[in-house]
């Protein structure tokens, strides 16, 4: 059991990182779509800023995923 614990830790960490990133990007896309629905002519700048923020959230999520990958590799 003990030698499998790192795998369990990596799997749980991976899932939690995805939950966080998915929630963040979901909230972001919802707010952006709402904004575009209210004011369609602002679609361009809203889309650009949404992509930037999505990139930032994605960056943090992927750092967590890489760290989980490192746990498995360096076990």
């Amino acid at each position: 059991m003990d030698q499998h614990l790192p795998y369990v830790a990596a799997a749980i960490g991976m899932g939690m990182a995805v939950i966080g990133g998915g929630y963040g990007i979901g909230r972001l896309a919802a707010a952006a779509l709402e904004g575009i629905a209210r004011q369609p002519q602002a679609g361009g700048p809203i889309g650009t800023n949404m992509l930037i923020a999505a990139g930032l959230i994605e960056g943090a999520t992927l750092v967590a995923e890489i760290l989980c990958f490192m746990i498995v590799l360096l076990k």
Partner: protein
Amino acid sequence: MQEAGHKVVSEVQHGATAASAAEHAAGHPDDLGSTIMHHITDGHSLEFFGWEIPLPQIHIGGLDLSITKHVVMMWVAAVILILLFTVALRARRIVPTGLANLLEMIVLFVRDEISVKNLGAHHGRKLAPYLLTLFFFILTCNLLGLVPFAASATGNVNVTAGLAILSFLMIQFEGIREHGFFKHWKNLVPHGLPVLVLPIMIVVEILGMFVKPFALTMRLFANMTAGHVAILAFLGMIFVFKSTAASLAAAPMAVGLALGIMMLEVFVALLQAYIFTMLTSLFIGLSVHPSH
């Protein structure tokens, strides 16, 4: 059939530990984990239809200056870009056609939508060459990862760190050129803050100065690596089953999923090149036009 498949798999699993040294030397590790690692990490050889083309290993004064797989891929990207633009712009016309038209569209997008928008007309046009180089180089490196026998150099943390350090230097250099050396460092914190919050703000802003390029590095590297790992993991599903029948059944699904991820990768390659260029121009803009 099932027994034969089982035998092969167990041989593979046992062989991996026994012959791992020899396998690593030949560049063909046999278990799934090390196969994936072999494909996403840098190496001292190029592969072409099962042939190994060795690359020179150069060590100068304790520094490893070897010409590795990713170095060759960066050269390939540079050669592709030089050839593409020379061929496209060989016949200069007022109204471009074909390839030149496509390239002009992308160049204008980067100049007007990324550079000028974040930096203003004057700095935007002045810095457009740097941002265009960054965009096309990252895009070509990303897309090379989807070409058979090639690898994406941007899936190497050293390459992305190098690009981010260049961006960091550009951020500081442009700020200093615009405001002068001391004024630039004073612009780090907004003016007119209460003196009591200054110690906190200075620490936070200095941290932020280094977090920006670090985030650029990790974002590009992790995105490219994650895409390759996902493709290889789906294809590896064919080989993890113990029976041949299960492997055959899994093959269409695995190839289909890998194809889907590869299509996503084409989009991610474009998006990451855009995000890197966009954030670089945004950060240079913050340094050139600080908030007062």
